[in-house]
Each structure stands twice: as structure tokens, then as C-alpha cells.
């Protein structure tokens, strides 16, 4: 199936692939050919595109994925896992922490929970990448 990974700045990946592992907002999912049409938002995590010969991994921070005939992932920020270093991670965590503080100060309920979840998603991501 056709898989496209795009960020606002460029087209990162566009090719045939066997399956895609997507860090969906409600949990990870693996999409293969002829998946039922679905739109999901992304949480911070690792997106894995499996091809016949090799596998590419991207660290994504948010956005959404559209599953239909093929899969298009529209990531707000997507970086090759090999290029993703501790410095970038720390910057993202700092932003997440800041937005949690801001949410706590100005908003209530869902917004705070969302910001807290966003931060904890990052922490889990950091652990799995070995930055913690």
C-alpha cells in the first residue's frame, strides 16, 4: 500500500510499504493494506514504517493519520529517529511542561488533563528512546 509521511516543511516518506505502526491518541495501532477508513490524531511517539527490505522510524509529536486506500500521516513535527537527539527531546519536554503550567494556571478540567497527558506521553517516549 502507498504510505506518505508529511510534515508542514516537507514530504518525508512516500513509497510502498507493508505496514505502518501509528502512535494513535487512544493507543498504538498497526495499519496494513485495506484497513477500514479511519482518522486518528497522533500522540508523541514513534511511527514505524515497515517495508519489504527495511524499516524507517520517525519520532512524531502530534498531528493526525488518515487510513484509507493508503496511509497518510500528517505530522506536525516528524524527525527520523536516528536524527532525534537528547537536545531536541529536552526542548520538546520543556515546551510540554510549560504548556502544562500554563494550562494549570489558566484553565481547568480537560485542558489540564490534556496537557498532563501530552507531557507524560513525552516521558514515556523518552524512556523508550533511552533519554531518561
Amino acid at each position, binding site marked *: 500500500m502507498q504510505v506518505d509521511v508529511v510534515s508542514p516543511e516537507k514530504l518525508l516518506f512516500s513509497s510502498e510499504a507493508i505496514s505502518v505502526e501509528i502512535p494513535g491518541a487512544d493507543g498504538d495501532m498497526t495499519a496494513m493494506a485495506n484497513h477500514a477508513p479511519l482518522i486518528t490524531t497522533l500522540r508523541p511517539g514513534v511511527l514505524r514504517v515497515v517495508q519489504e527490505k527495511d524499516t524507517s522510524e520517525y519520532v512524531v509529536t502530534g498531528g*493526525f493519520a488518515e487510513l484509507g486506500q493508503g496511509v497518510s500521516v500528517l505530522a506536525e513535527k516528524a524527525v527520523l529517529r536516528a536524527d532525534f537527539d537528547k537536545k531536541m527531546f529536552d526542548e520538546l519536554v520543556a515546551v510540554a511542561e510549560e504548556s502544562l503550567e500554563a494550562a494549570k494556571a489558566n484553565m481547568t478540567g480537560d485542558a489540564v488533563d490534556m496537557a498532563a497527558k501530552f507531557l507524560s506521553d513525552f516521558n514515556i517516549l523518552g524512556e523508550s528512546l533511552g533519554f531518561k
Partner: protein
Amino acid sequence: MPSLKDLKNRIESVKNTRKITKAMQMVAAAKLRRAQDSAEASRPYTERFNSVLSALASANAAGSGGPQLLVGTGKDQTHLLVVMTAERGLCGGFNSNIAKLAKSHALKLLEQGKTIKILTVGKKGRDVVKRDLGEHFIHHIDLSEIKSIRYTDAQAISKSILERFTAGEFDIATLFYSKFVNVVTQIPTAQQVIPARFDEDEGTKTEIVSYEYEPTEEEILADLLPRGVGTQIFAALLENGASEQGARMSAMDNATRNAGDMIDKLTIQYNRSRQAVITNELIEIISGAEAL
């Protein structure tokens, strides 16, 4: 009648000006290519994003209780005009065309008794707005430090706009920027971003597939709409960047050509006066010899 020395200096200085405009033209040409490349690179994202968002929005617009970013606040009293221009001048009518469009739009709104607030991106637009509509100016976002526009810059602008929207500072937001058609044509454009607007034909183009949504449709829409504002601003910034360089390139091309014409004219004048001086001297010598 200027003296020979004056003319010589004049020619020299026009030649220097021509060198500068020629250099600026070449720099603009190089930058234009880069700007076009990045505009090109962002297109797949923007197109897909808009097609998904418009499909979601049209499915959601039927029920009226949608998010405010989509259906609006129910009023259209306060308008926010986001005027996006360049940080530098010397690019022909680029900045003034955008400012002119924004100004006529603003005056029309004021005539209808609406309140307007103006946010500027880019120094040149701010100067015009402050001069002509100073009392409506609320904020300026500075991009002069930024060499190549990244998505995070657009996000920062969209964040500042969204914060104002959530605080209830305005009802409708419109972007003013220049669409890049080619090097000689850039069209100043007004585009409404809040509440979100989708082109009708774009909406019909997307095939109707009943998607499943994860989490719910409303949550996705609430997540995507703010991102949509950022995406639109990013696209506008890139279009503007390409337009600016295109406008500068053609302006500098004109300036170089004009300088060349001027040099030709001045050189002819210089040669004429030189010949006149020689002729005069000869007449003096001959008439002196005849008098003897």
C-alpha cells in the same frame, strides 16, 4: 550646463548604483528559488490537511453546536486584520499593495460600524498601519531575525492569534498576504481564517468516505482546527516570502535597466560637451591665428 567633471562623477555614481541593483537582483533570484522550493515542499501537507479538515467540517457543520473556530462566535462585530508584509523594502509595490488592500478593507469595515484590530507581521506593514490606522494597531510580530521561515514561526503567530480569540478579543480574523503567481505577478489576497472557511469546490473534490474516528469526531475537529490556523498562516508566510523575492527581483531588474539607460544618456551628453569644448578651443586658436 554641467561641467565635464560633474558629468563624469554622475556617470560613475550611476554605474555604482547599477552594480548594487544588479547584485540585489541576483541575490533575490537565488532566494526566490529557495522560497519557491519551500513553498512547494509544504504543499502536500497543506492540501491533505485541508481536504481532511473540510470533509470533517462539512460533516460537522450540519449540527450547529460546533467549535467556535468553525462556526464563529455568532457575531461579526470585531475584526482582526493580520497584515503580513516583508521586513525589507526595495521590492517594488509588494509591501504597499498588501497594505493598500488591508487599508481599503479596514476602511470598509469601519464604514459599516465594525470595530477593527490590526496585527502586523513584518516591519514594512507595521510602518504603514501605524501611520494610517494607528489607533487600531494592537500587536506586531517581528520576523526580522528569521532567515528562513519554519513551521514553528507560523505556530507562534497562530498561538498569539488563538489566544486573543479565546479571550474573546475578536470575532473574525482575516489574513492579508500576497499570492505568488510568477516573478512579475503577485496578487495581494485577503483570506479569512477564523471562523474557518473552505472553498466549495475543494470540499466537493474529496470523495465521500465514511471514516471512523479515533478519538471522537468532535475531539479530532477540536484538535485540528487550531492546527489549521497554523497551517494556513505557514502557507501564507511561504507564499509571501516567494512573492517578496519575486517582486524584488523584477524591481531590481527594472532599476538595473534604468541605470543602464541613464548611463547611455549621460555618456552621450558627456561626449557632446567634450566635443564642444574641443571645437571651442580650435575656434579660439584659428581666430587668434587669423588676427595676426
